[in-house]
């Protein structure tokens, strides 16, 4: 009695994971309910100032996603809502959601903020971590979606001031809690994390000393939208600190508090905060990070760490005893700590930042208990082995920090993977519940005299209280070609939109100018409106008289009014020259090419095939499996060979997967949706997407007697020897494992990420086989991030001896009679220790495939300096290439463990399905075009385009409209002005500035 599957998915949690999962699902043909318990989506990422390792502004990269998610026709966002109950089975769940009252009608509220101005009650702002205030009626942060206020009833005194102030009539004190029943086929949980409450650790003084703050509080202090507008001051006395200390592992790697795990992200965010702090001041700033192991294990992280050292960030390997306040009234802090050699130091700082760890929120834990999901000992969701995203309950998937501390790219990756898996589960119901926007046929306005309509917005009193809107309207009426000008309280409200359509019809308007707020948030809305009125969306121009006028000149109404007039004049002058831009679209070949038949490639291939798409899996070797064939056991003790066998069987048996073994890619051409690839076998494949999952190799060491003594193994060789009961290993009395062999070296400056955990695992395995064996691990930093830290603790408890070495003083390995002599300097005693080892295991680096360079040229996708493939954006597009339609997964992207590779492979499949699920791909219209007779084929556009859109074809450049993102770089740089950008042609921009300077 199986019920039909439902083509909708519930996503719980509106942080970056929930947003990404929702967007991927909605773009793949599923309706999404996004349930968020706070009043706005955005999560923790919205609170961050910058993001590592690129130092991108967090809000700048997040807010386009907020807008996209908020506007998506097939994503229904329910804020202030919690999941109460889930019934049913995978494919068909009934979910009960309770939505708390907001007391503000989201449809009516335009986010103008008049209510908060009027509200007399101030309470500490949660978003700013309690530094600074918000009102009892508030919007969590400026860019929040929904762009609507909310009343905090606990603090509201019901004085009625907000109701009086609200011109939109949005406030409704009578709202009550609502219970909704949602029917969905799958559930993706992304409730995120909470920060560790540092006041539990009395000796750090958090909550007792005002100048001891958390890292998240420091993020808000650094943020331009934070309580001090980005001025880096101590909250206590608003003075700029000269000496700041960061203390790592606060609430992490602490088994006394049952927080034995590593929080994975704190090392990097502390380095980032130290670097950014230095940028925030012109005065010298001392920054010191007190740490145990520096865990910069991710892609590009080690370089970031090295750069921080060059920029003068001081790193002190230490254990903190306590923090006390200096008793001279300065409220400075004194840190007493033990150095690595056991000596004690005391130092004074103006500000101490606690790098607090991540923990699951009690509410999310409770939800999991209600859903019957298995949690691990720390209360995080336990993932099914080698699934990357599955919980213990079928049909419920998880992404983000809730299944273990992780950074943004891994969170995004997992979100795409969970979305992909949910999509696969519901493949038969794809497209059944999504809606498509339909527009009337476009009027042909070419050759018509321009008839411009100007719509000027008051934005409540945001614009209207500064700029004299009626004057602007009167002025606009007299501008050339203007046939209508009018004023609106909120141009974006539904009634204004309806009026706009009617007026376009009535006045036969063929160009529209809206003078209001930011095109970034509102252009798509207005463009949709004019399309509904039968106009091409390119016949639209916007003047930002709020953000760029009334807000910044609020004390100069006369000048602001004049400026608003100028801005409108400019927009009108340009609008008169606007031309309709045809929408270019192309079909999609519903097939995928996956390059690489290792675990990642096979996983991607299976996901896509299960979604119903034809998959061509190309593997250069004669058999599937890749480097995983050499792995015996996973980090959690999983049986890798049987997992691999079953994966290979599934791939081989799948009717939608065509295998091309012993084959490589010879040539490839085309663009997203329409690639044509020729294999070395001569076969030609048509496909809509490409996934590159070509893996990596284990480095063959040239150091530590490798290849010169049969007692020296790499990790993979040692694993093999252990499994086969090799007498060299089983008979050994002493084993030494050396870390960072070929990694974190000048010629290979990256960390290979997985070798620490692997060595710890091997050490435990050796101890398990022979508890009497002496096992030493010689390391630089032990990087057992996340729950892998448990393995490290277990190894130390079982007597594995860890000795740290420095790159300047590496272990010396010599052949001796019947053993290998290893000499290392003990980091505590400071004296050389000689170990007579029977076997030596080398944690050899993970190195990129030699063929990467060739593939990079073939597919026109970039490599990073280390030779791994480089994704489109280190933070938010971790499995996409900048070239549309090409994705990457697995070790080809950089070192990762099996579990992580599987998640990434599923993510690549999930992202690829957003392309394959489309009937047609549409260019966004405002693309660059080449006038071919003027083109000198100089390659400037080809070299500069970030999206690989231009190619030289028949001795001139051609820009593929489906790849062009409309950034305009090529048009600006073309030395012969052969390229123009639709909507931004020279004469339009000249008319625009001409209108401004007409009277000058």
């Amino acid at each position: 009695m199986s019920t039909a599957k439902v083509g909708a998915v519930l996503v719980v949690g509106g942080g970056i994971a929930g947003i990404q999962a929702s967007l991927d699902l909605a773009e793949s043909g599923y309706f999404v309910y996004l349930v968020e318990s706070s009043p706005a989506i955005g999560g923790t990422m919205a609170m961050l100032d910058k993001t590592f390792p690129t130092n991108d502004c967090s809000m700048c990269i997040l807010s386009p996603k907020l807008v996209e998610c908020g506007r998506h026709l097939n994503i229904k966002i329910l804020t202030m809502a919690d999941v109460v109950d889930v019934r049913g089975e995978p494919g068909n769940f009934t979910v009960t959601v309770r939505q708390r009252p907001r007391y503000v009608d989201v449809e009516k509220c335009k986010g103008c903020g008049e209510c908060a101005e009027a509200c007399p009650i101030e309470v500490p702002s949660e978003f700013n971590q309690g530094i600074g205030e918000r009102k009892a009626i508030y919007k969590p942060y400026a860019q929040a979606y929904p762009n609507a206020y909310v009343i905090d009833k606990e603090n509201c005194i019901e004085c009625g001031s907000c109701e009086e102030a609200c011109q939109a009539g949005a406030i409704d004190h009578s709202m009550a809690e609502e219970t909704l029943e949602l029917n969905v086929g799958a559930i993706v949980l992304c409730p995120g994390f909470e920060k560790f409450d540092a006041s539990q650790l009395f000796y750090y003084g958090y909550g007792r000393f005002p100048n001891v703050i958390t890292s998240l509080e420091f993020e808000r202090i650094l943020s331009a939208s934070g309580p001090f507008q980005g001025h880096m001051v101590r909250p206590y006395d608003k003075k700029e600190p000269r000496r700041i200390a960061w203390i790592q592992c606060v609430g992490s790697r602490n088994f006394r508090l049952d927080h034995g795990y590593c929080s994975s992200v704190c090392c990097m965010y502390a380095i980032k905060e130290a670097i950014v702090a230095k940028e925030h001041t012109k005065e010298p700033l001392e920054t010191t990070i007190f740490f145990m192991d520096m865990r910069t294990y991710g892609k590009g992280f080690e370089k970031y760490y090295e750069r921080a050292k060059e920029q003068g960030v001081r790193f002190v390997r230490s254990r903190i005893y306590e923090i006390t306040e200096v008793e001279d009234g300065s409220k400075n802090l004194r840190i007493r700590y033990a150095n690595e050699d056991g000596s004690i130091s005391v130092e004074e700082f103006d500000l101490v930042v606690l790098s607090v760890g991540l923990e699951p929120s009690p509410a999310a834990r409770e939800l999991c208990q209600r859903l019957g999901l298995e949690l691990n000992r720390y209360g995080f969701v336990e993932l099914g082995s080698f699934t990357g995203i599955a919980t213990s309950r079928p049909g419920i998937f998880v992404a983000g920090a809730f299944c273990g501390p992780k950074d943004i790219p891994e969170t995004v990756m997992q979100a795409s993977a969970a979305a992909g898996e949910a999509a696969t589960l519901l493949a038969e119901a794809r497209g059944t519940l999504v809606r498509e926007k339909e527009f009337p046929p476009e009027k042909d306005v070419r050759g018509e005299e321009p008839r411009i309509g100007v719509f000027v917005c008051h934005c409540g009193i945001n614009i209207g209280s500064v700029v004299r809107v009626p004057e602007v309207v009167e002025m606009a009426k007299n501008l050339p070609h203007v046939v209508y000008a009018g004023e609106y309280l909120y141009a974006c409200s539904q009634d204004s939109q309806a009026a706009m359509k009617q007026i376009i019809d009535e006045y036969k308007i063929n160009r529209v100018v809206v003078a209001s707020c930011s095109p970034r948030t509102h252009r798509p809305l207005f463009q949709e409106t004019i399309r509904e009125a039968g106009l091409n969306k390119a016949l639209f121009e916007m003047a930002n008289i709020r953000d760029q006028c009334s807000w910044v000149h609020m004390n100069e109404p006369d000048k602001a009014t004049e400026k608003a007039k100028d801005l409108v004049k400019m927009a009108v002058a340009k609008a008169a020259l606007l031309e309709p831009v045809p929408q270019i679209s192309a079909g999609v070949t519903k097939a995928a090419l996956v390059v690489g038949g290792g675990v990642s490639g096979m996983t991607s291939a299976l996901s896509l095939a299960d979604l119903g798409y034809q998959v061509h899996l190309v593997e250069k070797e004669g058999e599937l499996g890749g480097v995983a064939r050499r792995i015996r056991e996973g980090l959690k003790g999983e049986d890798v060979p049987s997992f691999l066998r079953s994966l290979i069987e599934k791939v081989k048996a799948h009717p939608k997967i065509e295998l091309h073994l012993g084959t490589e890619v010879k040539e490839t051409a085309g663009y997203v949706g329409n690639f044509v690839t020729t294999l070395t076998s001569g076969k030609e494949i048509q496909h809509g997407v490409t996934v590159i999952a070509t893996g990596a190799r284990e480095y063959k060491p040239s150091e530590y007697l490798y290849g010169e003594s049969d007692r020296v193994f790499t990790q993979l060789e040692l694993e093999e020897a252990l499994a086969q009961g090799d007498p060299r290993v089983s008979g050994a009395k002493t084993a030494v494992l050396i870390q960072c062999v070929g990694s974190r070296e000048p010629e290979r400056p990256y960390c290979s990420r997985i070798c620490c955990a692997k060595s710890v695992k091997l050490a435990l395995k050796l101890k398990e086989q022979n508890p009497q064996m002496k096992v030493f691990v010689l390391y630089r930093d032990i990087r057992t991030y996340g729950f892998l830290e448990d393995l490290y603790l277990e190894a130390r408890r079982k007597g594995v001896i860890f000795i740290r070495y420095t790159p300047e003083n590496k272990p010396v390995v010599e052949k001796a009679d019947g053993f290998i002599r290893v000499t290392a300097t003990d980091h505590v005693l400071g004296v050389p220790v000689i170990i007579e080892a029977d076997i030596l295991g080398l944690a050899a680096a993970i190195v990129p495939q030699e063929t990467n360079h060739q593939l990079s040229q073939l597919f026109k996708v970039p490599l990073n300096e280390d030779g791994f493939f480089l994704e489109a954006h280190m933070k938010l597009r971790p499995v996409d290439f900048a070239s549309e339609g090409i994705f990457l997964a697995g070790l080809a992207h950089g070192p990762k463990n099996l579990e992580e590779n599987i998640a990434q492979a599923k993510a690549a499949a999930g992202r690829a399905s957003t392309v394959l699920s489309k009937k047609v791909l549409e260019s966004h219209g405002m693309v660059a075009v080449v006038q071919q007779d003027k083109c000198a084929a100089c390659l400037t556009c080809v070299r500069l385009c970030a999206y690989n859109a231009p190619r030289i074809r028949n001795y001139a450049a051609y820009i593929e409209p489906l790849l062009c993102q409309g950034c305009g770089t090529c048009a600006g740089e073309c030395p012969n002005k052969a390229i123009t950008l639709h909507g931004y042609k020279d004469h339009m921009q000249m008319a625009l500035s001409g209108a401004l300077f007409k009277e000058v």
Partner: protein
Amino acid sequence: MIVAQQKNIKDIAEMVADAQKVLLAGCAGCVTVCLAGGEKETEVLAAALRIMRKLQGNPLETVTYVATRQCDPEYIEAMDGLVKDVDAVISLACGVGVQYLAERFKDKWVVPALDTKFVGGAVKHGVWEERCGLCGDCVLHRTGGICPIIRCSKSILNGPCGGSQNGKCEISKDVDCAWQLIYDRMKALGKLDKLMEIQMPKDWSKARDGGPRRAIREDVIIG
């Protein structure tokens, strides 16, 4: 291609200080590709000169035109109409283009906006390097495809000299020793023995030293 770079704008302005109206003539050939004299640079230079002169209280009128090439008579004929009522012509072509314009427009003051640097190519966007010395008697088949005439500071034919240190030329740590490059390449090709042959002194009369040169293809000449 020919690689050129724009002169200092003050020097260009000085050359046309007496003019009230000028024609700026770009070229869509080599100088467009090396980002020195295409339509963009032509328009930018025109605007800059206008602004400069306006600030000096002596406004300048500009007309712009970009020829397909300035080194062919047919392409510059098209400028006849524009040249008529200007006081001077600023060519954004290489030295060839400037001379072609000067030859055609005999009564006009024709000036160069560019310094013609060398014959070379792009090594990456925005960086060009010299590759050919125009010696008129190519020796690349003897030197592994690396030109000692132009890439060796001394143009020696039997290198390297004593100034080659760690692969660099003694004139600068940024200049590769051409003979090191030649040696490395010949070694990679397994042709080191070829370098044992002593090169006789070059016939420099085929180069610029023989006076102005002319190339003729009898078979294609009409009439």
